[in-house]
């Protein structure tokens, strides 16, 4: 066991970086609507993201109804089916997951966990949310323009994205591009806040390596997003110009319905490179915050220090770096040079190393831990299992020779839904069950929570494991109807119908979760302070839920890392980060905050 030193206990140097100038709202509107408090902005982000996410959920039901019971619902036509696919994918990836992890959890947790009163640029933070909302509204507006939303697939590949045969080629694709441009502008404002707050807003004693892994995850994911989103920005602007002004950035010489179009010599592959230079880091923009959050959920609910904290941080940083050199594994079938493919296959397999390291460390944290099968822990374990499943199929698809035959099949659909759909959403649920008491002061109902977990977890596997099998059979993805396809047996159609029924059941079960959120806010058991016995600063605030400015008159001082659980000789099985060593040794009470002695 490492020697633990407790040097310079009495010495508290003056802060190197000044405290944030806290904005004090003067009216109801500035307190709850145009609010600069990161906690309110977080909730605004979360509500908006979940609302638009529910639209995407309903779209997935529409797709499944068509696949499971072809031609039974009259308004689902080939064109609308493609529109449902496109909007489902784009909303889930960008407008729900990215916005919820970074705008929602990032805003709520970063200032509280690093010991800051707010984000460092509160006004810019507020504008970030309103630009995001505008982006969502523009996206929603595309449902109501002539021709409807774009049906180009969430990857928006030209030339088909802007050719007249594609649904939504009139106004839908233009609104999609505008919405993405707005989203990226809004995110950049928020993202700069998250990064600078982590770097500079930390309270005294909160060194980078004392930060909880949740903050590390959000921090690295934000850097990834700041560097990756410009690629989507450039792609969206150029795509919109090709569509509106008739430029040929991406549009090649092309004949449509017997007529040569005005386009000349553009490069569709260039768009693919730009899109996936954003698109692959996007996977980690969603996954890395989930990695961080799940690390904390496991440590708290297994009452153990996270195994290999430094390795966990290094792995997050390494995954972030590597995520920028794997993008073309999404383009093996684009006709690129095979040597290029080998390079990207190699980097793709290398990224499995730090990722596997994280899985081992989560497992080793659980090993001989005092595991409490609370709802957050159930969701965390569910995440690990699902992420391993999705990751392993990713190793299949990372290899060129395996990817080529599987690329256009349902196998890919199953893979990415497991790894960046189900897995991060399990973390989101776990995080909500974990931090809901902090946000409301009440616990979520456990019985409803267990029902929600088991239906969601078992349901997700019942849906996606068979979809892997359908992929192996050769069932293509993106198809509205399979028609007379001799290599697909009748049993595959029966299985598809079964999957659709399960999708509807799992979807409806989410209503229990939403009911729980509302019911528990009024009727839930009072949480008290720090109901999980967590060490991190967000639970050490003088008020629960945390008040304006988070920490009362003085900011907390941090004396230790975030994982002092089950420390031998302590009165309780956790030592808060702001508890001084002398008090800890005596097993005294948590001081909450301390005066800023100098």
């Amino acid at each position, binding site marked *: 066991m*490492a*020697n*633990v*030193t*407790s*040097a*310079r*206990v009495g*010495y*508290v*140097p003056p*802060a*190197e*970086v000044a405290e*944030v100038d806290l904005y004090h709202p003067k009216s109801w509107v500035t307190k709850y609507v145009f609010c600069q408090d990161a906690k309110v902005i977080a909730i605004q982000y979360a509500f908006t993201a979940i609302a638009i996410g529910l639209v995407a959920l309903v779209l997935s039901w529409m797709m499944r109804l068509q696949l499971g019971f072809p031609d039974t619902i009259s308004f689902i036509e080939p064109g609308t089916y493609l529109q449902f696919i496109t909007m489902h994918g784009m909303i889930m990836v960008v407008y729900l997951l990215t916005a919820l992890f970074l705008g929602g959890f990032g805003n709520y947790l970063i200032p509280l966990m690093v010991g800051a009163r707010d984000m*460092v*640029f509160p006004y810019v933070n507020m504008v970030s949310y309103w630009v995001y909302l505008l982006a969502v509204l523009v996206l929603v507006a595309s449902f109501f323009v002539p021709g409807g939303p774009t049906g180009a697939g969430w990857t928006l590949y030209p030339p088909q994205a802007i050719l007249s045969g594609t649904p939504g080629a009139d106004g839908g694709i233009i609104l999609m591009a505008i919405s993405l441009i707005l989203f990226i502008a809004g995110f*950049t404002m928020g993202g*700069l806040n998250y*990064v*600078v707050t982590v*770097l*500079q*807003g930390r309270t*005294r*004693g909160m*060194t*980078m*390596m*004392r930060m909880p892994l949740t903050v590390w995850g959000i921090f690295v994911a934000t850097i990834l997003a*700041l*560097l990756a989103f*410009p690629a989507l920005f*450039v792609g969206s*602007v*150029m795509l919109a*110009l090709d569509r509106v*002004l*008739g*430029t*040929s*950035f991406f549009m090649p010489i092309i004949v449509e319905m017997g007529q040569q179009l*005005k386009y000349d*010599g*553009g*490069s569709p592959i*260039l768009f693919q*490179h730009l899109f996936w230079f954003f698109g692959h880091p996007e996977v980690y923009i969603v996954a890395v915050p989930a990695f961080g959050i799940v690390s904390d959920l496991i440590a708290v609910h297994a009452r153990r220090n996270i195994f290999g*904290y*430094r390795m966990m941080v*290094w792995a997050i*940083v390494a995954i972030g770096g590597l995520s920028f050199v794997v993008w073309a594994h999404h383009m093996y079938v684009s006709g690129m040079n095979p040597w290029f493919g080998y390079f990207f296959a190699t980097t793709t397999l290398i990224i499995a190393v730090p990722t596997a390291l994280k899985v081992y460390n989560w497992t080793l944290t659980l090993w001989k831990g005092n595991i409490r099968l609370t709802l957050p822990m159930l969701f965390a374990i569910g995440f690990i299992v699902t992420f391993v499943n999705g990751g392993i199929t990713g190793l299949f698809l990372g290899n060129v020779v395996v990817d080529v035959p599987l690329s256009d099949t349902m196998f890919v659909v199953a893979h990415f839904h497991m790894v960046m759909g189900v897995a991060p959403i399990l973390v989101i649920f776990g995080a909500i069950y974990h931090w809901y008491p902090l946000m409301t002061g009440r616990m979520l109902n456990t019985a409803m929570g267990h029902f929600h977990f088991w239906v969601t977890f078992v349901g997700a596997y019942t849906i996606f494991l068979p979809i892997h099998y359908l992929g192996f059979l050769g069932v293509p993805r993106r198809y509205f109807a399979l028609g007379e396809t001799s290599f697909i047996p009748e049993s595959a159609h029966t299985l598809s119908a079964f999957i659709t029924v399960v999708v509807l059941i799992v979807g409806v079960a989410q209503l229990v979760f939403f009911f729980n959120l509302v019911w528990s806010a009024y009727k839930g058991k009072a949480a008290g302070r720090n109901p999980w016995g967590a060490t991190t600063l967000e639970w050490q605030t003088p008020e629960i839920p945390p008040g304006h400015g988070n920490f009362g008159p003085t900011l907390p*001082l941090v*004396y*230790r*890392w975030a*994982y*002092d659980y089950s420390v031998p000789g302590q009165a309780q099985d956790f030592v808060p980060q702001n508890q*001084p*060593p002398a008090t800890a040794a005596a097993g005294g009470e948590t001081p909450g905050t301390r005066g800023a002695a100098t």
Partner: protein
Amino acid sequence: MSFIGYLMEKPWTHQGEVDDRHGAIALPTVTLGLRMFLAVVTVLFSLLIVSYSDRMKFADWHQLPTPSLLWLNTALLVLSSVGLHWAQVNVRRGQMDGVQAGLLAGGVFAFAFLIGQVLASRQLTALGYFAAANPAIAFFYLLTAVHGLHLLGGLVAWGRTSAKVWRGYAAVDVRLSVELCAVYWHFLLVVWLVLFGLLLFT
């Protein structure tokens, strides 16, 4: 402490130590915020340049007939940057007259640059080159527009800073704003020189 240094810490071994460890990043928050923003903008323009280079390989690429007005515009942007630098030098000396002169020159030349860019685009349009005519022209419009929009954003910050200076704020209260404006201007000048070189020689 370097970033690698941070990552080598073993946080579980030393408790009770309350130090700040901001080290090299113990900057004013707005300074760090601007640096981060410039990193994002650098990525944006790098991707545009990569796209430009990739698109050049195709057969329909024809070299841009660069309007001579762009040389004048470049000189205007250099003068604008010099004006902001002058303001920066004076604010450090506490000489507010020099700050006013520098800001005024910087702003006027920046506006003149933007007007010049619009005129250069109109010249190309008058010659029969619209965005769709060939990809080099399309890139010209795109690159100059993106660069111009960033300068326009900078002019908002310039306007807020100038308003403070003209309202009589002390040098110490506006020093940081003036310095950051100067940094942003120099950055946009470098970006423009790279873009101009690209447009000129390819």
